[in-house]
């Protein structure tokens, strides 16, 4: 009997936030029955998809005891970049007046734009990696600087004007469904999740990532190219922000320089709720998914319960602090 009680306590410490939020979801469902409607859950799933992709990127940085504060701004830059390149030919406020009409080849150009966004963000990710590994600037500071740089680049590039009038070949990426049932957005996120799971669990790169987070000196001695591994991690992260930004742009049908602001913090919070340890070396893609899902459900619940937007921030902040406090507790218990 005693042992059983102990297990329940352990379970609560390990999954407390999730348990509380499941209860909150049920409460919301009772108060507002539409909360459990199919539409609402599809809506949540569509919101989760790009955030999950971004959180996957951040998770690699966190597992190696780093962080990436430039994530949100890179999402914004990718969204703006994609937007400027994928406007309707007949749209009056076109960013590039000479952008040709691709006719039946628009889908090919959409893919090319994804690659352009990924390439541009990867340059910033590469610089992040170099600064953190070779110049040994703490990730917190290095990526904080990058956050400002990317924001500046985005402002210079768009001249701070909002971008709209997207071609349907672009918006269909977010709004379309395979066989009219499965949203593309959902499928893309699923594919990213599977690829990242494979990298984390089945490749030497993934093993090296956990090793660096566990003990960087030991990794070095064991012949792990820690610098290269970290650069790859920050570049992969940037590529995922680019993809995330591209999708967010498609979903909202327009973008501005403020897009993605603060998303890095949301992603870090989601990872932590999902069990990615801030002490490094621990974290799973499935956990990241749960974390993002939980965080998104929290936001939706608060909306459904009619909580004032200002108070929503306070609630989210409390959840982040409690999640990290519980994470640290797990670490202490292991000693």
């Amino acid at each position: 009997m005693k042992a059983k009680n102990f297990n329940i306590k352990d379970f609560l410490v390990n999954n407390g936030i999730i348990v509380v939020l499941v209860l909150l979801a049920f409460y919301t469902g009772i108060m507002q029955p539409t909360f459990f409607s199919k539409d609402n859950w599809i809506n949540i799933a569509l919101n989760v998809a790009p955030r999950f992709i971004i959180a996957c990127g951040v998770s690699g940085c966190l597992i190696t005891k780093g962080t990436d504060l430039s994530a949100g701004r890179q999402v914004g830059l990718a969204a703006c970049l994609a937007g400027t390149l994928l406007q309707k030919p007949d749209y009056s406020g076109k960013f590039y007046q000479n952008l040709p009409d691709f006719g039946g080849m628009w889908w090919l150009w959409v893919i090319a734009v994804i690659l352009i966004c990924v390439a541009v963000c990867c340059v910033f990710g590469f610089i992040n990696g170099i600064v953190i590994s070779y110049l040994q600037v703490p990730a917190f500071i290095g990526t904080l600087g990058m956050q400002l740089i990317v924001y500046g680049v985005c402002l210079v590039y768009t001249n701070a004007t909002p971008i709209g009038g997207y071609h349907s070949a672009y918006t269909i990426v977010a709004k379309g469904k395979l066989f009219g049932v499965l949203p593309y957005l959902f499928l893309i996120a699923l594919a990213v999740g599977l690829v990242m799971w494979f990298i984390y669990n089945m490749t030497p790169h993934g093993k090296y990532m956990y090793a660096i987070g566990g003990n960087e000196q030991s990794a070095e001695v064991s012949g792990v190219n820690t610098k290269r591994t970290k650069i790859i991690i920050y570049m992969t992260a940037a590529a995922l922000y680019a993809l995330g930004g591209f999708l967010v742009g498609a979903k909202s049908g327009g973008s501005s320089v403020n897009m993605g602001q603060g998303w890095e913090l949301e992603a870090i919070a989601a990872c932590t709720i999902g069990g990615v340890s801030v002490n490094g070396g621990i974290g799973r893609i499935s956990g990241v998914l749960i974390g993002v899902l939980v965080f998104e459900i929290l936001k939706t619940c608060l909306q459904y319960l009619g909580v004032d937007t200002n108070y929503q921030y306070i609630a989210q902040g409390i959840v982040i602090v409690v999640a990290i406090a519980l994470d640290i507790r797990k670490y202490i218990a292991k000693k």
Partner: protein
Amino acid sequence: MAEQYRLEMKGVKKTFPGVKALDGVNLQVRPGTVHALMGENGAGKSTLMKCLFGIYKMDEGEVYIDGVKTEIANPDDALHKGLAMVHQELQPIPARSIAENMYLGRYPMKKFGPIKIVDHATMNSEAEKWLRDVKMNFNPKAQLGTLSIGQMQSVEIAKAVSQSANLVILDEPTSSLTDNEVEALFRIIRDLKSRGVSMIYISHKMAEIRQISDDITIMRDGTYVGTWRIEDISDEEIVRQMVGRELTNVYPPKDDYRTDETVLKVDHLTSIHSNSFQDCSFELKRGEILGFGGLVGAQRTELMEAIFGMRHIQRGTVQILGKEAHIKRPQDAINSSVGMITEDRRGNGIFGCLSIDDNTAIASYKNYTHAGKINKSEVDKVVKDSIAKLSIKTPSGKTLIQSLSGGNQQKVIIARWLANNPDILIMDEPTRGIDVGAKYEIYQIMIELVKQGKSIIMISSEMPELIGMSNRIIVMCNGHITGEVEGEDATQENIMAFATKFDLSGSTKKEATQEVQS
């Protein structure tokens, strides 16, 4: 109640997930005595002490101090009850001064108007007094990080002494000390004893136990074996009780498997730092065990780390298997078929939060990777073989390495390098803090490796081990290679003569003068 014990622990039990660490252990320490606590690594000595200090919570058991039943909640509480501990693995704050480290958490205070502030003058003068008391003339304002590991340990001992505790636990205090420092320590211990202080002395060194302790308690696999007066038990009996079997040979029979082929040739290797290794040249033959002797601070570790690409060199060359090797990073060395077991197991050996599987395979994942994907079943097989072959005590390969004892952690690290099948294996203090039984197993592994045509460089500060295991011994002092002995000439006296060829005092003192900015 024939005798009042200073400390009595009764029936202590402690279980970790999957491992029964302590099972009904007793300990009785008489006032004013040194009580040796012996047992193989993993026997539960450190766990018992951690239970005593409230770092771990014991599942069952009672603690009496001076006959009064007590419960100790945490290390701070232990300190108030007169218990102090000198840890086996130091936990200092290198960036702060010696005095601040000694008085951490109990700074002397003085009034400064309405508030209280730290009294630096008193702290420094007190620290200096205590350091002098243990015959260490360091500047208390010097940054702790500028001292060697051995010197830091001395500071820890001075700290324990300064806490005027009446029960001091010394967990392998001499493992990094030079002979002079050990003598100084023993003087302090005898002095404390005469003042009525009791001490628990954890060590694997038989000679020291014999020299300093009054009573001895032996543990084996988490259980209590027994307690004896030291004069009532022979060395052979102690070893027999510890391992639970007769142990006739300390070293496996030494055969010569050396060939003429030179696998490693080091020429004029010189560090970028003037106080580190200078102009070192030597050769290693295939099938040879080459010992490196010297005192703490002789720069042996630094030389080996440079060969392995962990340190920068100013000039000099390294040839491996007849080819010049340009080693900039450890992975270059690994690609040149060199492996390295480092001295600081926790600092740059293990990955605490990862499993034994991951810890074993980390240096050799590329061998099991096909088309970018790791073949898990191959990894599992290698790890399982290693656990069996090196008799690593663990429930499974999925267990986290941090839950193993030091000796078993070391075996995992050996397994890590064996999985890579290197021609040259550098072992820096491979048996430090490891019990006799596991030591013998590691020696056997070393012999097996040279039999297979591999070559080993072994740094060791234990003279008998160096002599017992090496085909040839190179001695270093103050960054220079000062001599080489082999066969009949390999005696403690000869090695010691080379190891003290230069006067060390000048350079080490200079290092410790950099003061902390306050």
